[in-house]
């Protein structure tokens, strides 16, 4: 199973962080923040009982498997050098999670 909980957790950690917008919508739609928003993937319909929905609910209920991470990136495709200056907390799947 692909676990998606960590992405929701990053969004909610950003909402709580002063460096980022204070609402969920503000964080998600912040220009350039997430590639899935920039390329329109975000508008893909998902079914009610998809694992993605379950993961989103867990994130909203407070489960955070990242230990407070604010960023994630794919080390193979990341073009921004700046991201490497962040402290990497853990790797889940293809992504490095960092704060």
């Amino acid at each position: 199973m692909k676990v998606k909980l960590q992405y929701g957790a990053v969004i909610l950690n950003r909402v709580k962080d002063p460096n980022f917008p204070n609402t969920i919508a503000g964080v998600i739609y912040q220009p350039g923040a997430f590639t899935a928003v920039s390329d329109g993937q975000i508008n893909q319909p998902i079914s009610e009982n998809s694992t993605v929905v379950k993961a989103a609910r867990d994130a909203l209920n407070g489960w955070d498997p990242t230990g407070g991470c604010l960023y994630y990136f794919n080390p193979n495709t990341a073009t921004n050098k700046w991201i490497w200056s962040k402290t990497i907390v853990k790797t889940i799947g293809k992504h490095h999670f960092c704060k």
Partner: protein
Amino acid sequence: MGKIKDKIYDWKNRLKDRHMLTLVVSLIAIIVIMGVFIYKKQTEYRQVMENQYNMAFFELVDYVQNVENFLAKSLISTTPEHGAETLTNVWREANLASSYLSQLPISTNELANTSKFLNQVSEYSYSLSRKNIYNEALTQEELDNLKQLHDYSLELENTLNQLSSDMSEGRISWGELTKKGSIAFATQVSNISQDSFKNIEENFQKYAGLIYDGAYSEHITTAEKVGLTGENVSEEQAKQVVKDLLGEEKTKNIESNGLIENGNIIVYDFYCKQNEDDKNPTHISISQKGGHVVLMNSNRDVVAEVISQEEANEKGKEFLYNHGYQNMKETYYLKQDGIITINYAYQQGDIIMYPDLIKLKIALDNGEILGMETTGYLNSHHERQITEPQIGIEEAKTTLNKNLEIMSEKLAVIPTEWRTEILCYEFKGKVDDTEFLVYINAENGREENILVIIDTPNGTLTM
């Protein structure tokens, strides 16, 4: 040249022979028309974007101006009433400024400190305005902090004004700012503007975190976790905790993710599978300090709901009891897709300790514990020294709205946004058909909080 001309004529004649010329000509015409149309649309869209960015930017400029203005006023305000009003204005304007800031197409890392500054100004002025409302004057230290914030806001305002005139005179456009690769002629322009935004940031490099009791203050985010007790455990010991928690069946195959040192709590991370190709592994984190469960989670489809909410409550409580969490009482729950999430709070004597929170996820088909989340408990759990309330319960009741029909009353400790705790009387009551929870401070009789209870088929929620 002549050669090419000949070739084109030759090609044209050959097309003419086969009556193709009209077809080719009309195809070219269609392509040109479509190209023009698409180009126009595209310019239109770009314009819409530009306008939106401009609006966000100029709103930001305005709100930052107001922040600076109201901060200046707050420095010379002498009465708490007027101080409260001014600071409330700072709070609002800073909040709006940060919301518009986040709409600008500038990458997060370049504006992070500016955003933090605005959020902290907003928080700080809010907490000071509350103080003023209770008729307390500001201390010299608080005034000094405000003075410093005002200086920073002045600098931010000046930089933004410079940028704003650059923009009005057409030296900067958002298209250039957002462009990834630097194209030769655009580079110079975008250097000016990117640098301007960087300059804003550099001003804030010096800006250290304020020490104050706000949710965003530095010392809150690094506060000690009083519930995280005990000696460090080894990975093997942590594995044993996992086995005890999940049982033999689920932990046949434990995959270790190693020690995660940079998270909020240092943990050993594991994935537990029932067999090699288990599609729903359970993720579990055990703290290095004391071997506490920090987080456990798994998901699966639950089709039949055969367990009632009450039974689930008991199952959860039993589970907690068996794993060393005694005196936990269920407070709220939420049911989604056959999985119930129940909040348990620690009860010390008769007093509910809301900060000491553990959440459990329980499947309603067989009562399996699917998830556990203990951050609240680990952050704040300890045996508290409860002093006798200064205010009697009858006296506290006089503060309540006369229309509130009281259904239950008890003592509770509630968390504040800034991680402090208040001992309160919790009154559950009804006005018409709406249920409320009202919290009256047991020390000074202030109304600390009012929550509306929303009963949905899926659970009890408070807002």
